[in-house]
């Protein structure tokens, strides 16, 4: 007897078609489902309708699945730099800091059209070679240096500050700005410790598994590359002797600062971020002397290795917000540069075509760098007891690059043309699928490899569409056990192999 609530769905004592679909979709209550089931079991006409409905459900699923084969946003690593360039520019734009925006664009514009990773490496080197010693100093000293940012040896004529030409004698204590030290600490923490939460959403995108040692190695490589242009002598292995740092008088409006004696006196001089492009020449040629104060050139910079601190111009220093933006942007740039270097020097990485405002944080976190490996990460079975009677075995694979293809097997569809699998391997997989579903459970089997949009991990999927027409509700639609399916997955893994799946990425 139909449930009172469902009487309108029974026509002349037979369940309506919609009710049958609802039953097949397992959306009926227990009572109503039992009523439909008992009726269908004793009514040949309704039994035929149920069989037809099952066919329609399976057909719908198959048709809709065909829509999924649209080009994916999978691009090789060579596009990473351009993508990240946009990211940095977008960051600066969002912060509505004209100064930051200009610097970001100035710093990264050439990188779009030239060899990317070397350029990024230079930027990283400039930032990191300066910030790492600063951080080390910060850590070794154990105290936070006290000074204002205005006490940097950078002058800006727009602020009316007179350039200083009086260099302190060697070994003289110099001043270290607290914000700069903080920047150094933050930047180094960002670069060397991906797991350190910085509060910046972009920091979440740090690929896991990059150790501090690796990061430092990358930094060292970048520093060597930067400091040793063709024809230049390699940097000395020993620390440079103490070098005087030009001391610029603070702007009139700036509070008096108390110089603090720190080992920075033994560090290379400070150069403004504006001078990134000039650093190689200075470093290699060892030229010192005065410069244009308006653009932040070091005053009386002596010869020797050059340190750099990212610093906002005096005009921007008046605004704490802008100062904060600059520091944050510097961290972003350092992070971006490190990611590019790491990516280029270690692995290929699949990256979205463009960053997303929200997804930027979430997606990046869920899209770790894909490092080539020699075996699958895991084989995970996912039994999808969906309305279309399919069973899915999912092999989670982390080692694939830009791979997107599929192969079908079984009797209902001819094998599709595949670019990666050899015909012999396709046949072997088809045989495996056929043998695994010898009870005519499977109407067809499909093997496909995609990049998971949810996790970013490449997936090798074995999709089995089972024949559920003759099975009554409540029975397993696929009689193959979990263990057998997992075994099947392993067998396919042994045939396919990671190397065979990996697509050529230049």
């Amino acid at each position, binding site marked *: 007897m139909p449930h009172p609530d469902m009487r309108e769905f029974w026509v002349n004592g037979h369940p309506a078609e919609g009710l049958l679909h609802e039953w097949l979709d397992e959306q009926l209550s227990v009572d109503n489902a039992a009523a439909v089931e008992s009726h269908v079991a004793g009514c040949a006409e309704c039994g035929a309708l149920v069989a037809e409905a099952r066919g329609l459900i399976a057909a719908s699923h198959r*048709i809709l699945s065909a829509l999924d084969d649209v080009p994916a946003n999978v691009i090789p690593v*060579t596009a990473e730099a351009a993508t990240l360039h946009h990211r940095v520019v977008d960051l600066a734009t969002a912060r509505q800091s004209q100064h930051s925006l200009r610097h970001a664009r100035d710093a990264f514009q050439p990188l779009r059209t030239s060899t990317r990773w070397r350029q990024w490496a230079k930027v990283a080197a400039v930032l990191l070679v300066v910030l790492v010693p600063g951080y080390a100093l910060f850590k070794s000293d154990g105290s936070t240096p006290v000074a204002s940012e205005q006490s940097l040896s950078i002058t800006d004529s727009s602020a009316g500050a007179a350039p200083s030409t009086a260099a302190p004698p060697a070994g003289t204590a110099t001043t270290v700005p607290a914000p700069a030290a903080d920047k150094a600490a933050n930047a180094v923490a960002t670069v060397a410790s991906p797991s350190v939460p910085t509060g910046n959403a972009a920091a979440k995108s740090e690929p896991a598994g990059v150790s501090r040692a690796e990061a430092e190695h990358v930094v060292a490589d970048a520093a060597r590359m930067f400091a040793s242009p063709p024809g230049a002598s390699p940097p000395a292995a020993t620390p440079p002797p103490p070098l005087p740092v030009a001391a610029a008088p603070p702007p009139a409006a700036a509070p008096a600062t108390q110089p603090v004696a720190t080992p920075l006196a033994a560090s290379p001089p400070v150069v403004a971020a504006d001078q990134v492009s000039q650093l190689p020449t200075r470093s290699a040629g060892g030229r010192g002397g005065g410069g244009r104060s308006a653009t932040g050139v070091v005053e009386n910079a002596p010869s020797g290795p050059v340190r750099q601190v990212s610093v906002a111009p005096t005009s921007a220093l008046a605004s704490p917000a802008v100062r904060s933006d600059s520091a944050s942007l510097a961290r972003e740039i350092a992070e971006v540069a490190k990611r590019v270097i790491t990516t280029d020097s270690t692995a290929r990485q699949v990256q979205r075509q463009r960053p997303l405002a929200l997804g930027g944080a*979430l997606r990046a976190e*869920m899209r770790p760098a894909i490092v080539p490996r020699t075996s699958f990460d895991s084989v995970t079975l996912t039994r999808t007891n969906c309305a279309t009677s399919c069973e899915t075995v999912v092999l989670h694979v982390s080692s694939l690059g830009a791979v997107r293809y599929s192969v079908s097997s079984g009797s209902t569809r001819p094998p599709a043309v595949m*670019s990666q699998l050899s015909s012999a391997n396709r046949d072997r997989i088809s045989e495996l699928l056929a043998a695994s579903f010898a009870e005519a459970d499977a109407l067809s089997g499909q093997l496909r490899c995609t990049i998971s*949009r949810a996790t970013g991990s490449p997936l090798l999927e074995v999709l089995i569409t089972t024949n559920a027409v003759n099975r009554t509700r409540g029975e397993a639609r696929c009689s193959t056990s979990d263990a057998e399916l997992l075994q099947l997955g392993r067998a396919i893994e042994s045939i396919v192999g990671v190397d065979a799946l990996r697509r050529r990425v230049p």
Partner: protein
Amino acid sequence: MEHVERLFRLYHAPLVRYLTRRLGDRDWAEEIAQETFLRALRQETISSERSWLFAVATNLVRDDARKQSRQRKQLELLRVEAEAHVSVDPEPTSMERDEERALARQAVESLAEKDRLALLMREEGLDYDEIAAALNITRSSVGTTLSRARRRLAEQFEALQRDKEGHGHAAS
């Protein structure tokens, strides 16, 4: 934020798949999905998460259709820009798969809007209550809607296949 992150982990893939099937453009689908999650971020409480997300996404598609030409033009520019950096040729797809996809697209487009959306949502695992909530229809009509949509889709697809084969034979 954690709430949205959890939503993102749970529903991003099915939502994008739903939108991709609905729109036939994964880029566009990603955009809509992104906007959907951004709205979820601004929403303090969401009672029925999945139906809310799918409903918002569906409404966004409707709204987006109005500015479709402008949107697609922008996407095209972005795509061209991105392709300029892509050094790997896209995976060649077989003619068979292309044809099947085209037929499927035609068949899906032939459905009434409500039927199409209900079917696509069901494919993503939404239950009848969620579909009813997302489409603002009664729960009791979902079964009828789905049965009609499935039948119509299968029949239309078969008809298109027959037409194609007929044209193929005529051509040969």
